């Protein structure tokens, strides 16, 4: 058994601060929307729901932090989780569509998004897979094809929903893990040849994704149409200036910026807390990623190493991706800001990542 250390305090504190900032900003961004949805009665609608999820997430996180490391690396547990998540991703396709997508299981009062939970599960599976095949990572039949097959199944299921953002995130982090595992540059070239045309095809095959792409390339061409979200996000962030309009004083949440409390919460942060606030949030994520990578380098075994790398990248890349979208650096994708954006499944998945990382921080090589 590994020697027990205390949890990584930096990671823990950074994660808690990010979550608290998230709650404050969710309230600020959603109060008016909530008032409108509840007929002027309850501005706390979204905040309360998020707090309930946070409660569940905290339990899960503390559970994972204290979990016996042996259970985590048990192959049977991982395959069980993988099987469960694949089943859930299949089942969710048969749910009644919400906004034309099949992303959610609808429970009374709550919605649940299995693709979010797929993120840590895929990381766990790939970590197991790569730790076993580390010496043969460049072999086509024993490593790359099985890797590709599992990934294709999961990403494919998620694309069917469709949820391009989550699919891309999983694909991106998986490839990064493979890269870290030592994939040869030759293979990388081959994978790129295979993946990039496929990615382009996927990106351009659906109208809404093509629109988002062309919009991204020139958001001001059609500010009231498809470039609306991107433009409104930039206006929000731009008006913030150095020190922001002040907490709660944002105006873009007055129905100019759609989804101000979910995918575009970083825009509201930029508007209300300014450059300083936005930089603080970026710094908090930097701490998160820094500690995650430190934890990875200190892990005792290859599995833990890949888990820590994968989970850290999952949080870090998604955060950068989300910020880049709000800043119009990347085309609009439905991706929440981890630990911050409103959304139970996303919060839960992010807290699973943090919990597992904290668990791994207790062991040392």
């Amino acid at each position: 058994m590994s020697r027990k250390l205390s949890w990584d305090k930096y990671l823990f504190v950074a994660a808690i601060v990010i979550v608290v900032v998230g709650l404050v900003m969710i309230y600020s961004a959603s109060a008016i929307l909530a008032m409108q949805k509840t007929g002027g009665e309850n501005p706390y609608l979204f905040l309360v729901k998020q707090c309930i999820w946070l409660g569940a997430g905290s339990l899960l996180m503390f559970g994972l932090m204290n979990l016996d490391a042996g259970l985590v690396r048990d192959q049977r547990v991982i395959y069980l989780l993988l099987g469960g998540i694949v089943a859930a991703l299949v089942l969710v396709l048969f749910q009644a569509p919400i906004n034309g997508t099949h992303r959610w299981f609808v429970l009374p009062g709550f919605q649940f998004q299995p693709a979010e939970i797929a993120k840590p599960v895929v990381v766990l599976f790939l970590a197991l897979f790569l730790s076993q095949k580390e010496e043969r990572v460049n072999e086509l039949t024993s490593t790359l094809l099985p890797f590709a097959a599992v990934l294709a199944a999961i990403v494919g299921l998620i694309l069917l929903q469709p949820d391009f953002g989550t699919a891309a995130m999983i694909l991106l982090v998986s490839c990064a893990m493979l890269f870290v595992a030592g994939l040869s540059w030759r293979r990388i070239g081959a994978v790129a040849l295979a993946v990039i045309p496929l990615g382009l095809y996927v990106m351009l095959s659906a109208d809404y994704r093509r629109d988002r792409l062309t919009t991204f390339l020139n958001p001001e061409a059609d500010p009231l149409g498809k470039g609306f979200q991107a433009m409104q996000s930039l206006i929000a962030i731009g008006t913030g200036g150095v020190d922001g309009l002040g907490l709660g004083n944002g105006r873009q949440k007055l129905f100019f910026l759609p989804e101000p409390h979910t995918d575009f919460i970083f825009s509201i942060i930029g508007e209300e807390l300014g450059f300083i606030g936005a930089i603080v949030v970026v710094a908090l994520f930097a701490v998160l990623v820094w500690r995650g990578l430190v934890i990875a380098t200190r892990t005792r075994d290859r599995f833990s190493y890949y888990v820590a790398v994968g989970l850290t990248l999952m949080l870090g890349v998604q955060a950068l991706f989300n910020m880049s979208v709000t800043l119009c650096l990347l085309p609009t994708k439905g991706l929440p800001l981890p630990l911050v954006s409103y959304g139970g499944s996303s919060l839960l998945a992010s807290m699973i990542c943090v919990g597992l990382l904290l668990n791994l921080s207790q062991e040392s090589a």
Partner: protein
Amino acid sequence: MTLSRKRLLMVSAFLVAWAIVVVARLAQVQILRHDDYVAKAARQQERTIELAPVRGSILDARGRILAESVPASSIYADPQAITDRRATAKKLAAIKALGLTRAQIEQKLKSDSEFAWISRQVDDEVAAEVRKLDLAGIYALEEHVRAYPKGSLAASVLGFVNVDGEGLSGAELAFEESLGGRAGKVTVLRDARRGVYLVGGEGKNAPVDGVSVELTIDEVIQYIAETELRSALASSRAESGSVVVMDPTSGAILALASLPDFDPNRFRDFSKNAWRNRAIQDLYEPGSTFKIITGAAGLEEGRVTPSQVIDCEQGSIEISGTRIREHGGHQYGYLTFEDVMAHSSNVGSIKVGLAVGPEAFYRRVTSFGFGSKSGVDLPGEASGILRSPKKWSALSNAVLSIGQEIAVTPLQIARATAAIANGGMLVTPHVLSRVVDREGNVVKDYAPPAATRVISEKNAAVLNEILKGVVSNGTGKRAALEDHQVAGKTGTAQKAEHGRYSPDKTIASFVGYVPADRPRLVILVVVDEPTIGQYGGEIAAPAFKRIAEATLRYLRVEPSIPGRNLDVDPPYLRARSKPPAPALPAGSVPDLRGLDARDAIAAATAAGFRVRTSGEGFVSTQSPEPGGAAGDAKLVRLTLAPEPRPVADGGEGR
């Protein structure tokens, strides 16, 4: 370092680079392009609502209101807040007083904006009815509507405003800067869906109400001028005409009448022709009234003296093949220059004009202000037509001497005559007396431009004598007053039609001033196309007389011909214009006699008295007498009679 570590480092470097790009982009958007985005945000988040100022009033020379802005309600809609346009339109259309059909209202509600007028400046009852319906998205707004309480009185001087209260013509336009005030602005924060979200405290900017403009126009003199002009037009069956009444010393215009006129309260119901201020916009050939200028030029150039004898050639003179005759076929022989003017001899005047010569004559005529605008502070003034000698024909010098080949405005003639009346100074006619704020403080006084001398005092006096002669024993006899000596000149100009002089269409005019030796008034009466009679002496001169008489009496000008003191107030004045009450000791009873019941009660109440009346109509007697003490009861008893009792002038020893 293992490969894996190396790879992890590369990934980390990539993440760091990405983070730097994000931070750099944040700096660009939030710091470098901050202002752009603030402007973009303001464009979509804020709406500036203009708060209309209350327009200032237009007052007459004695502070009586000629135009004022009174509160009115306007109905508007926020089309975005209306869910069922059809039902809303139907309910509104049910209010018949709005005068809109369901389809018309529905059309207005189709707007994409958050603001659409339904009906502006409606009656209070209509607004109340709309409010009672309590329709979502339909609101009433307090606005001000322009009201002209005296109706058509001085309409062409006052002008009118558009529905937004901006002056479009007349004094309303001329003094827009003072009257209009400054609109206030309030910035309203709005959201993307439902219009106004909250009113921003910042950027609030209260409107500055307009200030009032006091004119030199006197309501009563204006009324006299319009009434007499109307009756002159009626008796001569003419369609249009104008009257100028001016103070010859200051250039202050006391009345400026123009007929046909219009009611500025509903100016759109009248033709544009009725909107014209004929006294400053219409051009006509002055005819014989212009002989004053010919005479002035002759005297100033030393070409003629009053007693100089001129051969009037037995009725006609031939100028380069054209024979010019006297009016009415007169055949004058030798006349003194005085008599040439008194009888308005064409031949004699032409001889004077020719003696002056083209260049000097032209110079004299322009010096009297012809061919250029008088500078009156009203919009749309015409400058008239006066060709320079280079373009003159062989006939021009001659016919200009009798007021042809020149087009003038009535105001130009009045102005030039004023220069003779006041001893030789050409003054600038004006209607602005002063600008006063709501508290009655004078904001600005009229600053008259310097007057220029156009004729020597001596020659002005000579002309004065000549012009007195025109009235005492010449063509202007019917302008003579019993109380005052009048100086003036008649004019009968043939109208040009299709390039020739019409045989029967004339413009009859009379210009004069009174009292001749200490003139208070210059009055010009112009009657266009009289169909009964045609001479200025028979049509315009009597109107001059009546206007002068009534105005001098109203102004309490002591008779300048001794032994004359007749009560000749026209009946309409007795009822209408009570001269301003002389200062009475505080607390004493005001003079209410001659007022109608309503005015009398108002005046008495304002002075702090109670009133008991008996009878109907106008106050004939009052108890206590004016100036008396009413005692503790402060009660004034008024006896009313159907006919107003003439207000005896001087009867009280004033």
